[in-house]
């Protein structure tokens, strides 16, 4: 709280005007529209709308396609979070041992943050191309017939790898910062007591890293829920057989291609509820961290 302030009645509103105008026109109003639409049913020609209460939501949670999409999203989120955080933690632990080469390694690992998810998707799509890609070629030698156009597991693996690859850099930076924040004296004390590197990791380092891990978990779940839309759209388009149709992709397909506005709006509202929950968790965690 500032003690010294300026006294003006109109000026602060003028300063806030651009931000509030954009927020209202492009955020609050459309979100309100989505919420309203989720209680309405419109016929195919847009001639008649009627209030249907919670019918759109009820239909949504009875729809096997939506339940499938929920399940796909959970599998996808967990897989990406585990793969990208696990790899990043391994790299971070290795960098933490380095003295002079740490900076060079960091630069070489961090740059994919700047690569757009869509581009990451296209590159891995190329690598896994069933006809000419290098990975199917190698897998074929190992006796596995890769085809993400037909096989649902292959498609999921493809989008998980593409999404994780891009996220490693971010997790890596935060894990390195987290490791550096652990006092060396703690690890030294454990070493003097005879704990080897592995035991030290599990009893000292990893527990002290848990705030970072938890924070990254929330960030990664948010990332897989929303920012991976381009990966799906640029590669599998939700297929084959709905196996990679994550929630945000389904909202887009139902709203823009299927033109099922009521259902799409209800799905938007469900997604908003998820983001609100995640943001609340994130902010609670940060409040606790400040107290430390």
């Amino acid at each position, binding site marked *: 709280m500032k003690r010294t302030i300026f006294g003006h009645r109109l000026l602060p509103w003028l300063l806030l005007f651009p931000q*509030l105008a954009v927020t209202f026109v492009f955020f609050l109003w459309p979100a309100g529209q989505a919420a309203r639409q989720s209680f309405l049913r419109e016929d195919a020609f847009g001639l008649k709308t009627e209030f249907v209460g919670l019918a759109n939501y009820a239909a949504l949670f009875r729809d096997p396609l939506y339940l499938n999409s929920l399940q796909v999203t959970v599998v996808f989120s967990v897989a990406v979070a585990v793969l990208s955080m696990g790899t990043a933690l391994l790299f971070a632990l290795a960098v933490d041992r*380095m003295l002079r080469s740490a900076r060079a390694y960091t630069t070489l690992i961090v740059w994919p*943050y700047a690569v*757009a998810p869509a581009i990451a998707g296209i*590159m891995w799509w190329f690598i896994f191309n069933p006809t000419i890609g290098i990975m199917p*070629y190698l897998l074929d030698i190992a006796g596995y017939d890769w085809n993400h156009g037909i096989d649902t597991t292959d498609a999921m693996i493809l989008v998980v790898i593409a999404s994780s690859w891009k996220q490693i850099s971010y997790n890596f930076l935060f894990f390195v910062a987290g490791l550096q924040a652990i006092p060396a004296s703690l690890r030294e004390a454990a070493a003097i007591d005879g704990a080897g590197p592995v035991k030290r990791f599990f009893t000292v380092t990893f527990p002290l890293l848990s705030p970072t891990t938890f924070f990254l978990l929330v960030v990664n779940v948010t990332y897989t829920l929303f920012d991976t839309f381009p990966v799906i759209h640029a590669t599998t388009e939700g297929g084959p057989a709905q196996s990679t149709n994550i929630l945000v992709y389904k909202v887009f397909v139902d709203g*823009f291609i299927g033109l099922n*506005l009521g259902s799409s709006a209800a799905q*938007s509202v469900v997604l908003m509820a998820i*983001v609100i929950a995640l943001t609340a968790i994130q902010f609670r965690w940060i409040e606790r961290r400040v107290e430390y």
Partner: protein
Amino acid sequence: MVEKRPFLHLLAHLVLILGVLIVAFPVWLAFVASTHEPTAFTSGVIPLLPGSNGVETYATMLGTGMSTSGAPPLGLLLWNSFVMAMLIAVGKIAISILSAFAIVYFRFPLRSLAFWCIFITLMLPVEVRIVPTFKVVADLGLLNSYAGLTVPLIASATATFLFRQVFLTIPDELTEAARIDGAGPMKFFRDILVPLSRTNIAALFVILFIYGWNQYLWPLLVTTDAKFYTVVAAIKRMAEVTDAQPQWNFVMATAVMAMLPPVLVVILMQRLFVKGLVETEK
């Protein structure tokens, strides 16, 4: 490092070298693909070493583009992406620093309501409200324009919070001194607050430039006129061909050009980038 363990140290180096290779692998293959002739992709396996057709591929893409998929020259796509990234970054910073100034340095009725309105944007990513937001932009006649590409994305709670944090750490004595010397609020803002937040602005700019450059869904919806396509959103149109293999050399050349500018920004401004990343997550 606690004790000397040469084996573990060697293992760490190996892990990191492997890591660097994994991270670079897809980009290397994309670059290699862009230097080969189209015939290299008809059968067998993709080449692993650069070919000799690179100059020609890039010249074709930059000059004429992929006419078969209705995509304009890469030069125009890159320019559109650049304009979009700059407008989003500058726009977000400008409106956020102004609103943070209003919230921190003034007391007015409904101040906390204004703060909450801004806070709520954190919870409403584009993906969640695409259909109605698209309708608003269409009704305003902003489809196929730079304004339509950027204005709906420039509200920023994160940037507002960041500047609020920065302003709260600026000592009150400075404000008092400025007021005693007769400076009005705008003069104080211009001559003291903005210069003091310079490194924060720069760090934020790096993050927001990358954010703007990498936008995908929004440009895809708002642009139907090839004149306004951005490079990241256009790549899908190039890769999508019916009944045939994509022209991989051209698609991969586009991918390389699309990631080059933001990757350079990260590498050349690594310090600012890390600062921005850590700050915007608070």
